[in-house]
């Protein structure tokens, strides 16, 4: 059967909504230049489009549009309890982009946002100013790629590069010999050229999520294959970039032990584990409000319809299954890595 989606849906970014207030912003112009054929629609506020009632996240993701806007109000947030801080104090995150070009069925963004369109906030300078203000008080551990995959959108935004430049500028400040600003860029992207075009900056860590190919095929649509991700990790490490491997979220399937075992075999073959910054391990967990929406949006998704257990508003695998899955991965990793380089989300402490 012909792909109806291809035939009947508009191509990605065929329409770009631009807040009137930022239509002359340099970053707006730069992004628009990349889409000369897009229809530009001026809007008052990004929420007029992003927060309309009755939107269909899943349909919109078949034909994603961009919304260029200015971020107002809170620019920096304290880290959420379900996220790891890797032993860092002053754990924050920021959202300069909302939503993702990848389509992972289990992604919490599908439960968090009312729209499948992507919002890019063009006023990075305001976020940078806020961070400078914080840095006068204390060092920061800042995750900048939680509510999106920043590196996957790099060719459109150039934001990763801007963050690297910003982090480099801050490296002059020192707190008792530690970096004032540590940035985590979490990604599933596998652009080998990125590593060739940039140089490692102290304090900028690249957290690359790995999953077994069977999980990628089943749930992580539009993302690079495991092979591509490993090739990218290999190149990053070879060029001296600090890399964290994230085996998070681990996804249950009937033969999960075999799948994750095979993935680790490939990782150990391809990657020089001694050169990794650290690894993180965690099974899938999500807040009950998000899962409720995700189940409604994706009634045919096995990963979302799994009978999770609800504890204090967070859905997760049963304690027994969690221990089995995380234990399997941690035990395997312990053979190649010192324990203090393996982080489990559960207690936010080193194993």
């Amino acid at each position, binding site marked *: 059967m012909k792909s109806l989606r291809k*035939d009947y849906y508009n191509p990605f970014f065929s329409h770009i909504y631009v807040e009137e207030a930022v239509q002359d912003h340099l970053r707006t112009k730069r992004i628009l230049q990349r889409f000369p054929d897009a229809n530009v629609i001026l809007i008052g506020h990004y929420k007029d489009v992003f927060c309309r009632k009755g939107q269909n996240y899943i349909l919109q993701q078949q034909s994603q549009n961009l919304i260029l806007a200015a971020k107002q109000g809170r620019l920096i947030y304290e880290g959420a309890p379900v996220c790891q801080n890797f032993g860092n104090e002053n754990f924050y995150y920021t959202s300069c982009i909302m939503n993702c070009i990848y389509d992972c069925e289990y992604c919490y963004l599908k439960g968090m946002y009312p729209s499948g369109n992507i919002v890019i906030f063009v006023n990075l300078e305001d976020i940078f100013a806020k961070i400078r203000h914080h840095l006068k008080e204390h060092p920061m551990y800042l995750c900048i790629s939680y509510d999106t995959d920043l590196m996957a959108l790099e060719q459109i935004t150039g934001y990763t590069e801007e963050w690297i430049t910003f982090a480099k500028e801050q490296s002059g400040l020192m707190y008792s010999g530690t970096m004032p600003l540590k940035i985590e860029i979490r990604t599933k992207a596998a652009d080998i050229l990125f590593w060739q075009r940039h140089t490692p900056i102290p304090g900028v860590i690249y957290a690359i999520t790995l999953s077994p190919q069977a999980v990628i095929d089943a749930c992580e649509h539009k993302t690079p294959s495991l092979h591509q991700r490993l090739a990218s990790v290999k190149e990053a490490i070879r060029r001296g970039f600090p890399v964290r491997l994230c085996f998070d979220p681990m996804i249950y399937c*009937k033969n999960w032990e075999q799948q994750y075992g095979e993935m680790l075999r490939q990782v150990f073959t391809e990657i020089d584990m001694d050169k990794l910054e650290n690894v993180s391990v965690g099974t899938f967990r999500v807040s009950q409000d998000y899962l409720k929406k995700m189940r409604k949006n994706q009634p045919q998704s096995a990963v979302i*319809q799994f009978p999770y257990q609800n504890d204090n508003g967070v859905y997760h695998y049963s304690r027994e299954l969690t221990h089995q899955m995380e234990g399997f991965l941690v035990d395997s990793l312990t053979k190649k890595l010192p324990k203090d380089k393996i982080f489990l989300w559960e207690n936010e402490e080193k194993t």
Partner: protein
Amino acid sequence: MIYIVTALYAEAHPFITRFQMKKDSSHTRFQVFLNREANLCLIISGTGSVPSAAAVSSICTEYGTGPRDFLLNTGICAQILSERETPYSAGNPCRTGQIFLCSKIREQVTGRTFYPDLLYRHRFAEAQIITGARPYEKSIPAVTRTDEFLLYDMEAAAVYQAGSYYFGPHQMSFLKIISDNGNPEHVTSEQIEHLIHRNMDSIADYIASLQTILQEACPDELLAKTHREETLHTEHQPESFQKESLLKELEQLCDDLHCSRTMAQSLRQHIRYCILSGVDYASVLKAMYQEGKLPCRDKREGKQCFEELKKRLL
């Protein structure tokens, strides 16, 4: 069903002829035309915001709406001449007869703006439209002239607002054909019909695309989100999970396990997962019945049996 809303009979007539629609005489307040085989329903609202909102509400309540339905507002509009030349106006100030898909709808009286989704491929030019309370006339400074190319009508914003009680923004489109640039008194019924007729092929193509999208391109999982008519028990469940025999089987299993409400929900979630991930739950159940573990004698035994069932399934 695709619901077509027009303000005037002259706008509706080309549709009625093209799609061989029959009048539904059970309606007395609005004229309604149907072609059930083609899944098309047309309502003539009358001119202005209140009649068009009332018509949308009336027809949607009467026939019911769900994820496989769509609202199409079409008809004539005026073109607001901009004070400078635009790509549209260059060399030809009024684009009479040209059809546009509205990408942005502004309600003049409130200043509110609405954005229908533009997910589907089409071959129309796109434009913004202002919905006003009275016909657009050049002599009345009803609309602030801008540099933008703008359309003007008297229904779109109201149709969107009324429609959004029944449809998501991905289920509404607004197709408008320019009839004049501020001299509505010169536009006759015959001219309106002619303008619509001239564009009927492209509109019919768009309708055909929508019908295909609604019936084939959007499998259940894509549509379930906005389905507001579903009952509690069948809500958001895959089609395979809604088969009557399966529902009966589940009901029997709940009885045999002496399930509480919470247990029954959990059981349904387990079976749903098994269906989606290809786990052969039927064999597991069969084995448990053969081993005499099912049916259970009481709630206590049911609870223990359910724990074992969960372990066997996953």
